């Protein structure tokens, strides 16, 4: 982590307050964006706020690297009474990921938004975007079960509206957003129910206090059902296999900035919270891990196969990517449900890799769609020659998705297989192999359409995306390659996350 210390010297007064500033900064920024008079000002507020959040996240990451776990008591009250933020390596990794994607997304929105959202609504849109950012960051930092629900809803309510705004391009965004709202709210309410049972059994909401009391409590129906409700509720948000119905429509209909941000962060933060409950709150080797192995792992395997097949038969590019996301969430959950250090760290590494590649892919689709309103695979024919830079970045993301060597996706798949072999779970290896082959098929179909087909007769010619869109897109794609070559940073972060959660013993 010396890399960061070399680049940044954060004032010590700020470092001490960095955890809360990561969350409070975007909240204040959102109010400022809502107040700002023009689209341009709103965009600048958004970029500055996201940059500030990233700066503070980096400060938190360095602090976590030094201290192991960072605690921050809000309101000056000691944790079981007050709410506390608690950031371990996994939380810091997630914050770094979310804030980076948030900043790239904010930069990207400068040009991309104008073609998809009415100019008069930019201020509100940016405010909603920053609220989502604050919600996800708060979700990964909080050490309180109910506070997590509040931030889950902050991000969700923002997201529902942002997805629905996509109706300006495609009216199907509206029913998709409504569906998302229904499913998401039922999921959040299930989460609240689960937390209610845990509270009823332990009398506390603080996660550390809860884990101590759960260990003393032993097995209890209220606790076990509570976990089941929490995992099911968050499973909706994380799009774990049979609960993913909302996702394809929402990703396909949303404005491209929202698709980018959702694909890279929304499902990921829900997975984070599941991991937090199963490995941190519930005793190691206890009911939580059994539940994950018996209930979630088979569903994850089914997702990896079924949704990959669905992606192959899908016609629309965004929907292909969306189904692919569900399948990839299956991969991540498979790694996590191994419940070994290797499996967990592979899962976290895969999570980061997937966030970066899906971010690049959705940004690429958005960049290509600025000049032509391309939706289906056929409408993407030949775009590779007409908009080479955007298409190249898209291709890098696709290569990472397929697991081509020298990309982050390759290392992710590799470490996942290594983790599964180490744990002796051969069926996981087999599922991964089949799933990866299916991934190759739809990725190949996309790349073929873009680079080896001639445009359909009568199709409008595409132009290269504007500079302001290309830069964040290329940075996002570049990160997939950079970490594919030199993976020391994500590798060390994901290993630290895994050992922080279950210890290095296994």
């Amino acid at each position, binding site marked *: 982590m010396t890399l960061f210390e070399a680049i940044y010297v954060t004032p010590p007064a700020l470092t001490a307050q960095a955890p809360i500033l990561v969350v409070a900064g975007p909240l204040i920024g959102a109010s400022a964006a809502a107040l700002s008079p023009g689209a341009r000002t709103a965009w600048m507020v958004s970029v500055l706020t996201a940059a500030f959040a990233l700066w503070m996240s980096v400060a938190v990451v360095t602090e976590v690297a030094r201290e192991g776990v960072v605690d921050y008591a809000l309101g000056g009250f000691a944790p079981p009474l007050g709410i506390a933020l608690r950031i371990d390596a996994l939380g810091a990794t997630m914050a770094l990921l979310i804030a980076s994607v948030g900043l790239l997304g904010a930069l990207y929105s400068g040009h991309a938004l104008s073609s998809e959202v009415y100019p008069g609504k930019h201020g509100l849109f940016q405010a909603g975007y920053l609220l989502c950012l604050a919600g996800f960051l708060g979700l990964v930092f909080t050490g309180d079960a*109910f506070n997590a*629900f*509040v931030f889950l*809803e902050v991000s969700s*309510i923002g997201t*529902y*509206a942002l997805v*629905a705004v996509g*109706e300006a391009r495609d*009216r*199907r965004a*509206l*029913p998709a*957003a*409504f569906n998302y*709202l*229904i499913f998401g*709210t*039922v999921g959040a*309410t299930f989460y*609240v*129910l689960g937390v*209610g049972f845990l*509270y*009823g059994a332990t009398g506390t*909401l603080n996660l550390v206090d809860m884990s101590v009391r759960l260990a003393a409590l032993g097995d209890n129906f209220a606790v076990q059902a509570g976990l089941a409700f929490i995992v099911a509720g968050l499973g909706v948000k994380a799009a774990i296999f049979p609960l993913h119905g909302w996702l394809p429509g929402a990703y396909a209909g949303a404005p491209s900035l929202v698709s980018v941000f959702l694909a890279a962060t929304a499902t990921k933060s829900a997975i984070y919270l599941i991991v937090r409950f199963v490995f941190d709150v519930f005793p190691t080797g206890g009911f939580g891990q059994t539940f994950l192995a018996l209930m979630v792992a088979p569903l994850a395997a089914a997702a990896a196969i079924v949704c990959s097949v669905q992606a192959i038969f899908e*016609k*629309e590019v965004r929907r292909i990517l969306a189904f692919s996301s569900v399948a990839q969430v299956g991969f991540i959950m498979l790694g996590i449900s191994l419940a070994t250090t290797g499996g967990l760290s592979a899962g976290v590494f895969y999570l980061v890799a997937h966030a970066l590649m899906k971010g690049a892919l959705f940004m690429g689709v958005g960049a290509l769609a600025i000049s032509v309103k391309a*939706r*289906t695979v056929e409408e993407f024919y030949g775009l590779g020659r007409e908009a080479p830079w955007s298409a190249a970045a898209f291709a890098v993301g696709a290569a990472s998705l397929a697991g081509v060597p020298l990309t982050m996706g390759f290392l992710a798949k590799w470490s996942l297989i290594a983790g599964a072999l180490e744990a002796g779970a051969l069926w996981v290896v087999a599922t991964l192999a089949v799933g990866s082959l299916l991934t190759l098929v739809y990725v190949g179909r996309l790349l073929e359409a873009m680079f080896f087909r001639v445009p359909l007769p009568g199709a409008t010619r595409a132009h290269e995306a504007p500079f302001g869109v290309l830069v964040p897109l290329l940075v996002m794609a570049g990160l997939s390659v950079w970490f594919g070559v030199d993976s020391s940073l994500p590798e060390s972060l994901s290993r630290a996350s895994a050992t922080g959660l279950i210890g290095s013993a296994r």
Partner: protein
Amino acid sequence: MNFVVTHFNYLAVIVLMMTGLYVLFATGNLIKRMIGLALFQTSTALLYISLGKVAGGTAAIKIYPDSPEAQALAAQLDPAYVAQFGVSGVVYSNPLPHVLILTAIVVGVATLAVGLSIAVRIREAYGTIEADEIEAVRAREPGE
């Protein structure tokens, strides 16, 4: 005592929650769905409140122990019970679930407002708020 009596509140709340969930999934009308969702969320709140009730307690607003109100409350209870579970002479119900539910109710109405505004836009874009009719319109669109 018998489970149905000691856990009556919880069982009744389960029936309420499940009614809400049923309304939500059994209808295709978007507004009726939002009603089901609201019912589900409100009833979940009732579970928390049931958790926080203390027998013989009063609302968690500080009462002076020597005031007539406090004495009237204490007169109904066993002094040993008050001494063990009371705070300076008065037994209160647990305030924490109340605080959580205040937040949850607000979240519920926020969701309701956003959901209904989307439903209104759906009506404007599709001319209906029946899920199957929207599906039929969508199926006729190109690219599906």
